């Protein structure tokens, strides 16, 4: 990737990666939130609704593959910038003694990883969406993954607010 640095600065390169990570996370967050709303409160048939009804009226199975792909992409980009974070962000936050901020980010790193490991079973449960025996596990696993995604998104946002761009 060194050839890229002939055209843009190191800071710009990492800022682009960080922004890509955030944008992919927004897409993942949207997909999982729609899907979680659809399984937690499915709309009743035949009732014309407003915004909330349309929000939860998505077809869950159509989102499953996209969620898996997005989670993996967000994770790969996150793992890439993590080494840069360790050297150029975390050390500064340690010097500021913002321990809780660091703890919140460590937690994000852990639960996002656990979420990654749950993707195969999540995909399997949604691939067999017509199997009623899977309904409960599929519903609650989707909700857990959505909660993980929301936490990770907010924790990343907090750390970014502390350090700002220009890693």
């Amino acid at each position, binding site marked *: 990737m060194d050839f890229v640095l002939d055209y843009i600065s190191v800071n710009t390169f990492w800022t682009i990666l960080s922004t890509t990570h955030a944008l992919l996370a927004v897409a993942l967050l949207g997909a999982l939130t729609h899907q979680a709303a659809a399984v937690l409160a499915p709309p009743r048939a035949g009732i014309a609704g407003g915004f909330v009804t349309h929000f939860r009226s998505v077809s869950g199975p159509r989102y499953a593959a996209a969620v898996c792909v997005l989670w993996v992409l967000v994770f790969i980009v996150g793992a890439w910038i993590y080494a840069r974070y360790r050297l150029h962000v*975390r050390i500064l936050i340690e010097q500021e003694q913002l321990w809780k901020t660091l703890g919140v980010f460590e*937690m994000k790193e852990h639960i996002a990883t656990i979420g990654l*490991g749950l993707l195969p079973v999540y995909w399997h449960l949604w691939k067999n969406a017509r199997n009623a025996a899977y309904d409960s596990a599929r519903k609650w*696993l989707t909700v857990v993954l959505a909660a993980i995604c929301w936490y990770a998104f907010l924790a990343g946002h907090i750390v970014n607010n502390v350090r700002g761009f220009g890693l």
Partner: protein
Amino acid sequence: MNAATDTAAATSSRFGTFALVFGICFAILYVVCEMGAFPMFTYHPGIDRIDPGFAPPRRDEGPAMYWYGWIANSALGASILGLLAAMLPEKIRGKIPLALAWIVPVVLLPVLIYSLKFYWRW
């Protein structure tokens, strides 16, 4: 939640069993690796070097990162256990509760919070 129907359908395929056991074991192994400091390798981002197993940070070489090594260990262990589970007879595979896929990560949450107690300074 109907646990009986959950378990009955949990292993409709060998991939289903593998995926379920992989997810459960990956989460548990990851927490074990994190709390016990068992990385497969250590990455030193300051000097771009990888050491096998656990290697403490050295003076003037920057921090050591274990996260990648924990993931590698957890993925390897969970893959082995998942494959073994997938080879079990249908009668045994069918007894693995599907609900563990979401219960295990929820149960591990307070354990992770406790493992990070160093950071919760008020």
